[in-house]
């Protein structure tokens, strides 16, 4: 039950990310793409991939910060 709740919380947090952040995060974390692969798919420079990924994680961390005791954050 705790785990289910955690997944729900995480999913809800991912869904609130702007699309451009969400796509790079999902490509990296779920599809295991390299920065180069993400850059090719999303058609932006690698530097942009890096900054979006960093901001995506930052935002996700902030959103999960308060309410994710079950996620071990």
């Amino acid at each position, binding site marked *: 039950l705790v*785990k289910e709740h955690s997944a729900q919380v995480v999913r809800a947090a991912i*869904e609130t990310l702007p699309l451009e952040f969400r796509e790079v995060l999902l*490509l990296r974390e779920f*599809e295991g*793409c390299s*920065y180069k692969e993400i850059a090719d798919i999303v058609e932006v420079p690698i530097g942009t991939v890096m900054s979006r990924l960093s901001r995506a994680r930052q935002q996700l961390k902030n959103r999960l910060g308060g309410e*994710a005791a079950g*996620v071990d*954050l």
Partner: protein
Amino acid sequence: VTCQECEELLHPYLDGEMDAPQRAAVDAHLKDCKDCRQALEHLQMLRRALQLPELRYPASETLRHRLQKQLREADAKERRPQWPRWSAAAAAAVVAVALVWNFMPHGVPSEDDAMADAVVDQQQDAVKDGHLTDLTSSDPKAIQNWFSGKLAYTPPVPDLSAQGYTLKGARMEQVKGHPAAALVYQHGTDTVTVFVCSALQPGDKDLDTDSDDGYQIAYWTKGSLSFWVVSRIDAASLKQLSQGLRQTV
């Protein structure tokens, strides 16, 4: 490395996208800086949270078909002259599906199902575009040579002529975002394509079969490679061929 720099560098550090000197510089900073060590720890926790298996879901049948249809329509609008463009489109398709699938709660997924879908999609696209081979050759050695430098491994290219399957050639593929070798054989009027990919979970896994959209699929893993045989030939013939193939490769 300052703390401010380190904060940005932690992402490529975590993702293994750093060369050795950069990595050493970050390591040196981390050794002395408690705050940055903690920041790295937070990123690692975040990654663990994203690995909850419940975050991955397959699409419902309806959604899957709708997506496939949309992707094909999008493809049809943009003709692809050669494989690099093609692989980008295929990768984008995988992404589009992944972005939606991951957020549609429909039960527990299976990596194998997803792979089976992916190889059938690739096969359908290749047939639709009339582009089954990047290299046309019946010489296994020539095909292996052609793949060298394109893949991190050398795919085995078995000669199946004794079983009635003629080697026609090969093409590069992107299966779920990873490069793969596709070996193309002809059997009567049917095409049999053998996808050779890096195994998601290396080891030895027995032959398994599946079917999707009129295609028969047989697959197995041997060591670090996984094999996906896709064709419209009947299930029994495909299984027999695959069993033989599994012994050979």
